């Protein structure tokens, strides 16, 4: 009966599988939700959501699906005042439960409106007026099955309210995060040499002892092929003026890449706005301290993983024209886009990380060049989510762009 909720969750991008859905139905059958919406909310979350990064998406889906189950708001202040003076809670017996007839919500709302018109003063402990304690359907700390709670403390939050608070927003993985999280993401960028190739050069001590013992003590050596990470990384970072506002973010990524000691090789170069004939050794991009781009293209093999970090925002001429380079005293024979295409052609495993959030790509000043560069390189935003997607893109060969 909640099947629509399942699809709502899927729509929000939650990876819910049938296994988990089955487990949820089983749990509902066993009465674990405590027949309240709040209980249902926590039950669903515990069974269906497997990462705090997805709590926010779950909250959104839940709030959207169960919208309108909230208690009414916008009551006169005076009533709040009356209700602030509470009677102690009362015991609820089975008999009381039976004596009360259930009112439906519309009926309740209508009655509440009438009562609001009639009531002029405080009432506590009665069964008709709005007040605390008592058994009138309106007010708090009292008892009326299916009444409307006005203010006071419920033992439980309304589930929709809990969901609506979106407390887990900051755990969304598409937020920008710290060095440590970047490092964890980069740790996935590894590819072990398989156990099938290469010479067996490593003594497998455990297997040797095992074999020897099973041989009744006659020594039998077991050799193993070593496994090591074979990933090599080429990091190209934009050090242009427009990147200054993102420097903290880029620094975090940079230190994360540097601390990740598991790469077989790591090379870092800098460029100013766009890549032309030269790649610089320092962020200052001094004209006498560089390696020529063609040298890199010729000497670094195609299995390098290339990560380019830049906002990709520049004047169209900087990207598309000969001599379009921003530095006054330099001239480029080939347009920047040609160099980018060459790089992309040589390095099939490559991505462009853009510190500008994806949702602004169409609206910022450099939207034209962002679009152009995105045609050449797969582009991701520089957030944890984006980096993770970039890393998984770097693990497998990506389609080389159409335009050459």
């Amino acid at each position, binding site marked *: 009966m909640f099947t629509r909720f399942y699809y709502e969750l899927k729509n929000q991008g939650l990876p819910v599988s049938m296994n988990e859905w089955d487990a949820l139905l089983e749990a509902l059958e066993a009465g*674990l939700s405590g027949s309240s919406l709040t209980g249902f909310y926590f039950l669903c979350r*515990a069974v269906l959501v497997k990462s705090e990064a997805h709590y926010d998406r779950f909250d959104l889906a839940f709030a959207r699906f169960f919208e309108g189950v909230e208690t009414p708001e916008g009551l006169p202040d005076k009533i709040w005042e009356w209700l602030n003076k509470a009677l102690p809670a009362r015991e609820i017996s089975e008999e009381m439960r039976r004596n009360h007839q259930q009112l439906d919500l519309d009926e309740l709302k209508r009655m509440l409106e009438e009562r609001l018109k009639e009531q002029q003063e405080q009432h506590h402990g009665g069964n008709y007026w709005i007040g605390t304690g008592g058994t009138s359907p309106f007010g708090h700390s009292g008892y009326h099955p299916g009444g409307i709670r006005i203010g006071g403390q419920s033992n439980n939050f309304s589930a929709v309210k809990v969901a609506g608070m979106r407390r*887990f927003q900051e755990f969304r993985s598409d937020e920008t995060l710290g060095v440590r999280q970047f490092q964890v993401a980069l*740790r996935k960028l590894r590819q072990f040499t398989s156990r099938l190739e290469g010479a067996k050069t490593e003594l497998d001590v455990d297997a040797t002892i095992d074999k020897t013992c099973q041989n009744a003590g006659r020594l039998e050596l077991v050799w193993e092929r070593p496994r090591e990470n074979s990933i090599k990384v080429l990091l190209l970072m934009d050090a242009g003026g427009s990147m200054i506002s993102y420097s903290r973010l880029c620094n975090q990524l940079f230190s994360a890449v540097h601390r990740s000691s598991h790469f077989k090789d790591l090379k870092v170069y800098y460029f100013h706005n766009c890549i032309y004939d030269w790649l610089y050794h320092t962020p200052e991009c001094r004209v006498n301290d560089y390696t020529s781009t063609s040298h890199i293209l010729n000497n670094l093999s195609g299995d390098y993983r290339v990560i380019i970090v830049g906002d990709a925002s520049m004047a169209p001429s900087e990207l598309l024209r000969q001599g379009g380079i921003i530095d006054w005293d330099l001239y480029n024979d080939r347009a920047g886009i040609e160099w980018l295409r060459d790089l992309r052609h040589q390095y099939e495993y490559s991505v462009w990380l853009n510190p500008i959030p994806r949702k602004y790509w169409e609206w910022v000043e450099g939207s034209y060049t962002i679009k152009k560069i995105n045609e050449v390189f797969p582009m991701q935003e520089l957030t944890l989510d984006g980096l993770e997607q970039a890393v998984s893109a770097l693990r497998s060969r990506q389609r080389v762009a159409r335009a050459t």
Partner: protein
Amino acid sequence: MKRPNGTYNGSSGYIVSDELRNSVNIAIALQKPLLIKGEPGTGKTMLAQSIAESLGMELIIWNIKSTTKAQEGLYVYDTVQRLYDSQFGDQDVSDIKRYIKMGKLGEAFLAPSPVVLLIDEIDKADLEFPNDLLWELDQMSFYIPETKETIRTKHRPIVIITSNAEKELPDAFLRRCIFHYIEFPNAEAMEKILAVHHPNLERKLLEQAMDSFYMLRSLHNIQKRPSTSELIDWLQALVIGGISPNRIKKELPFLGVLLKKNEDLDLILQQLAGKSQSRNAMSRYR
């Protein structure tokens, strides 16, 4: 196989939120492992102890390290001992069973009464580790080829797994778990937790210390934010050091107990120094 019965209601030495208690009870009822994540110092490991205490069960802890293999949790066949015995000992080595040693998981399966099994920091191990345990945790049984024996549980243990999110856990593994993320306690919950550890604390001292603590946590440029256990230690230090509550906010004494990174310490000390300097400057001006 019997279901573990009873519901978890928290124990005296451990403050549990309603949400977490619900999750524990859901996991017990559905007979699935409960995966706990959360910031360091939010009491992930303590939870298992509290469950064991509250339900009167034995607690078996399997601490995972980066070198831990799934096999070690099941059983180890001690071939070396057997060889030794066959050559130098006068023991009977034909009975292989004597050289099969149960791991923590095996121990939990064979326990005569229901137990709580804590698999601590599962993310420390190799990426494949959780996948290697899927079958065993699902079926609660495993096969020992050497003795042609199948180990089955008599009583299904309550399995609690903690993770610090150093690695993503495989999806297939996650699908089989109930998940709960322990939020960092807010000031109100924190007071309750502190009351358990320091029952007779001076009100003013507590307030001042908590204010400073949450102030430090709210700073964005701090690399490692202090956690509950550090706050508890800090309070201890403040009490032993006999620091007067008025000095806490101004001077942040014993700051090293709260902040463990040099950069963070420097940053805060600089800010403190900056403040007192400007205060001095102000007074001189007056």
